[in-house]
């Protein structure tokens, strides 16, 4: 839809214009590619390089070594626990988010009509509040003598004490923080389902559940997959939830990386951990993105 491709037998002026158009794409992409080369690719390569440098050194690759990776894969090292926690949290968050967001996405795509804009606005806005501030609001809610505990106490005479500092509350925090990232791709996916297909299935006698399973779910799958991928990647790399709500009851992998970079002053070890995390994230993202037609998902209005 973006440009017409039929170019046979065009006047010379149109051909010249078409040539310009072919050059316009690469030319216009250049500034952004340059930014990402200097600000994304290069730093990641630096991390990769550092992961092969001597432990606790600050010089890049003076004496290349595999020592950092050996430390990580040493059976005595418990850093794999952090990896498992992060993957587990991310998995749980994605599952919960898929269920929690679906009705809202459905409403935004099909039911809310002229209210959809306002509701979208309400759902976008929390993204502009620093996640620390929002998560701290939950601390005030869940802490002993906080809004929940104190509220129950004054209403019913008994409280439930402190609900913070558990793995469960960390997942809660992730679900809270990343909800919009599941919701919006899902809404895009659901609005790709043509109403005629749903009606046709209904006319042919399909039940509500059958329509969902056979028509809506498969047709909206690209959006749901993007949402799941995005929320998985963000939760695997999340740190604020476990620090603010979890009170460091569980050390997630990003926290380990941060500790290595800051308190421990062991950049090469932190870099090696970061490389492993990047491998997990990168493999997932690249596999999924290869199978998606972004034009179709973003272009449909």
């Amino acid at each position: 839809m973006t440009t017409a491709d039929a170019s046979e037998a065009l006047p010379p002026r149109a051909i010249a214009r078409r040539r310009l158009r072919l050059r316009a794409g690469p030319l216009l992409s250049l500034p952004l590619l340059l930014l990402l080369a200097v600000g994304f690719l290069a730093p990641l390569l630096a991390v990769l390089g550092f992961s092969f440098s001597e432990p606790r050194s600050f010089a890049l690759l003076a004496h290349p070594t595999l020592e950092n990776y050996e430390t990580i894969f040493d059976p005595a090292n418990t850093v794999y626990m952090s990896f498992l926690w992060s993957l587990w949290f991310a998995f749980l968050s994605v599952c919960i988010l898929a269920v929690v967001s679906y009705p809202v996405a459905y409403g935004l795509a099909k039911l809310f009509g002229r209210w959809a804009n306002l509701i979208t606005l309400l759902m976008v806005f929390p993204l502009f509040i620093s996640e620390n501030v929002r998560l701290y609001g939950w601390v005030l809610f869940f802490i002993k003598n906080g809004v929940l505990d104190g509220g129950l106490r004054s209403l019913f005479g008994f409280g439930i004490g402190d609900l913070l500092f558990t793995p469960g509350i960390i997942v809660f925090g992730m679900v809270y923080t990343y909800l919009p990232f599941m919701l919006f791709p899902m809404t895009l996916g659901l609005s790709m389902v043509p109403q005629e297909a749903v009606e046709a299935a209904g006319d042919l006698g399909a039940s509500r559940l059958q329509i969902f399973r056979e028509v809506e779910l498969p047709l909206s799958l690209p959006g749901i997959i993007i949402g799941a991928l995005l929320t998985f990647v963000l939760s695997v790399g999340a740190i604020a939830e476990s620090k603010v709500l979890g009170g460091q009851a569980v050390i997630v992998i990003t926290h380990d990386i941060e500790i290595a970079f800051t308190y421990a002053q062991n950049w090469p070890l932190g870099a090696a951990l970061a490389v492993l995390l990047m491998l997990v994230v990168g493999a997932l993202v690249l596999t999924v993105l290869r199978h998606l037609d972004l034009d179709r998902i973003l272009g449909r209005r």
Partner: protein
Amino acid sequence: MAATAGSGRNRRLVWIWTGLIVVFLYLPVVCGLLASLNQGRYFIFPIARWSLRWWDKTINSIEVSILIQTSITIALIVTAISVVLAFCGALAFARYNWKGRTLFQRIVLLPIFFPQTVLGLALLLWFNMLGLPLSWRTAIFAHLVWIVPIVTLVISIQVYSFDAALEEAALDLGASRWQVLKEVTLPVLWPGIFSGALFAFLLSWGNFPLSLYTTGADTTVPEFLYAKMVAGYTPGVPTLGTISTGGAALIMLGGYAIVLLARRARSGR
């Protein structure tokens, strides 16, 4: 139509569920507001004595005004640069057909699909290697790496609905490239560019993970709040948090009002 949009009961359930989600999203903001109105230093609910003391203190604090200045400076510069870069990027992303386009689209998405804390640490390492001293300037660059791709997506969505024939027609009528850009492309894409700018400003304003590792001795509002949450809580923390949230809300609502008014003015003509 019977089975299509679900029965009335299902509809109502979707509405109720959405209402609950909105409450869920804003509950911590309300908790922050409550805590900021508590007179005592430690938060005990229900609040025994309400007071505006912490608001008074926060608003009159010189430290806070410096923080806000730093955050606004970073956000404004990030907005200006990212709108220009993302406008070009969005045209390459959605407007023109060229050979490397699908690859380009995927590359643009990568920083968005990447843990920000790791990106922040990687940039810290990279700036260090280059020998760049960390300050609010390096933070601007760090924000750009994450925000420009997002703004590119926001503008691209508008570009997709852009009818390329408009540009062609203007060219056929003898307009120069520059005239076409000024008279056709920009006015049509304006709403997308404007919401892209809002996104850029607000995302930079609220960003924590990238700022944390790249600002050096300078401090933004989210960084300051985090430091105080970890050690040295006073009701000033939720107060500044609420102020920061309120500021973002005003900017977003103002932006939304401008778009609505402009749309009305255009359709009224």
